C-alpha cells in the first residue's frame, strides 16, 4: 500500500522542531523512520505532518561525560554499532545492536527512535532498563530527565507527553568489574525477538553485587525479572530460572505460546548467566 497524504517540514533547530510538533494536531517526528514509515505504508497511522529532525546534527553525537555515555537521539544504530567507544564503554549495547533488524535498516534507524517508540520486542528499551539509564525529553515547557524505570509505561506507551521530543539517552559507562549478558531468539536474525534478555551485573565499591535482568518480547514493556535477579545474585541459577514463572506473564502470540515463551526465557537466562560469569549452583 501507499501512505495517506501528509505534509512535511524540516526542522532547523530543536526549538523549531518543538514548535512544528506543537503547531499542528497529529504531527509526528520523523527520525530514522524505520518503524514509522512502515506504519504509514500500511496505513496503520496517518499523521497530518511529519517533522523531519534529520538535519539536527547536534542530536547525532555519542559523548562521554561524568562517568556516563550519552547518545543523542539521532545516533544511528550502525553508528553506535561501529563505534569503538561504545564497544568499550557500553558493551551491552554493542552486543544488542547487531540484533536490531538488518544493516540497511541500522544505517537509518536511530537510538532515540527505538526508545521513543518502545516496541515491546525491541532490544534497546530492555538494555536501557537493565543499565538503569535515563532519558532526556524536551517540550514546550522545557527539558526534563526520566529514569528508564519510569519511562516505559505500557504497550507503545511511554512517559513522553504530547508535544515532547526525546533528545538523548544516558547510561553509566561500564567499569572493569561489570559484566553484561545479552541473548535473544528470533525466527530470523534481525526479526523482532520472540523472547530476549539484556542483563547487567555490577559490583560497586562496597562489594554488594547487583544483577538486573530485563526481558523483552514477553509483555507490553521491557520487564525486570526481580525474583530471578535476587536468586541469581545469590548464586542460585536453577532457582532464578524457576522464579521466571512468577516474574513474567507473557501472552500467546502468533509465533509462540505463553508456555513456550516461559521455557525460552529460562533457556536465555542460562545462556546469559554464563556471560555474566554466574556459576550454575
Amino acid at each position, binding site marked *: 500500500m501507499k501512505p495517506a497524504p501528509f505534509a*512535511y517540514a524540516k526542522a532547523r533547530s530543536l526549538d523549531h522542531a518543538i514548535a512544528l510538533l506543537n503547531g499542528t494536531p497529529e504531527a509526528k517526528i520523523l527520525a530514522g523512520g524505520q518503524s514509522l514509515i512502515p506504519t504509514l505504508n*500500511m496505513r496503520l497511522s496517518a499523521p497530518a505532518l511529519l517533522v*523531519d529532525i534529520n538535519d539536527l546534527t547536534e542530536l547525532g553525537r555519542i559523548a562521554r561525560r561524568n562517568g556516563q555515555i550519552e547518545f543523542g537521539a539521532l545516533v544511528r544504530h550502525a553508528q553506535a554499532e561501529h563505534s569503538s567507544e561504545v564497544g568499550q564503554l557500553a558493551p551491552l549495547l554493542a552486543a544488542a545492536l*547487531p540484533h536490531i533488524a*538488518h544493516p540497511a535498516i541500522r544505517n537509518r534507524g536511530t537510538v532515540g527512535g527505538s526508545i521513543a517508540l518502545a516496541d515491546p520486542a525491541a532490544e534497546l528499551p530492555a538494555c536501557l532498563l537493565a543499565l538503569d539509564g535515563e532519558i532526556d525529553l524536551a517540550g514546550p515547557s522545557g527539558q526534563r530527565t526520566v529514569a528508564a524505570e519510569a519511562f516505559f509505561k505500557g504497550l507503545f506507551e511511554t512517559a513522553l507527553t504530547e508535544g515532547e521530543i526525546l533528545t538523548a539517552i544516558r547510561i553509566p559507562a561500564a567499569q572493569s568489574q561489570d559484566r553484561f549478558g545479552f541473548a535473544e531468539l528470533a525466527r530470523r536474525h*534481525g526479526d523482532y525477538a520472540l523472547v530476549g534478555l539484556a542483563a547487567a551485573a555490577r559490583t560497586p565499591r562496597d562489594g554488594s553485587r547487583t544483577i538486573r535482568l530485563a526481558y523483552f518480547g514477553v509483555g507490553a514493556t521491557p520487564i525486570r525479572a526481580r525474583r530471578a535477579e535476587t536468586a541469581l545474585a545469590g548464586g542460585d541459577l536453577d532457582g532464578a530460572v524457576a522464579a521466571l514463572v512468577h516474574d513474567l506473564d507473557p501472552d500467546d502470540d502468533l509465533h509462540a505460546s505463553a508456555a513456550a515463551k516461559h521455557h525460552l526465557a529460562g533457556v536465555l537466562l542460562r545462556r546469559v548467566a554464563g556471560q555474566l560469569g554466574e556459576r550454575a549452583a
Partner: protein
Amino acid sequence: MSDRIDVAFTVNGEDVRAQVEPRQNLVDFLREELQLTGSHVGCEHGVCGACTVRVDGAIVRGCLLLAVQCDGRRVETIEGVSDSGDIADLQAAFCERNALQCGFCTPGMLLTAQDLLTRGNGAPSRETIRLHLSGNYCRCTGYHAIIDVVEEVALARTRQAR
C-alpha cells in the same frame, strides 16, 4: 496539506530536480519518475530488502525513506552500480553459480553483498555473510548458492589485493 516539495539530488551521478509529494518513498520515485526499475518493490515495510539502494554511500531500504528526505543527497541504484563495473565480478559469479532464479531479490542482494565486501576487513566468514544478508529474502535459491558466491568473490578479491 500535502503540497509538493522541490528537491534536488543526484541519482547515479546525474542531477535530478523534481517536485515530490511528501508521501512518495524513494523506490517509487526511482521507478515511476525516473524509470529506474532495477530496484524492486516487495514488502513495503522493510522486511524483504528488494528495494535496497545506496544513499550517500550507505545501503538503505528504498521503501523506508521518503524521496523528499533525499534532497541534497547522493543516491545510487543497481543501474548505476552495474554501469560502474564495481560489481561485475559479483554479477558474473551470481550467473555462474546459479545464485539467482527469478531475479527479484538480486539487485538488493548484490548491493548488500557489495556493502559487506567493501568494509575492508579481509574475506568475511560464511556466518558473517549470512548475518549481513539476513535482511534480504530470496524465495528461489535457498540462499546457499548466494552465500557461496559472496564467499568466492570475497576470497578472489582478497587474493587480488595481495
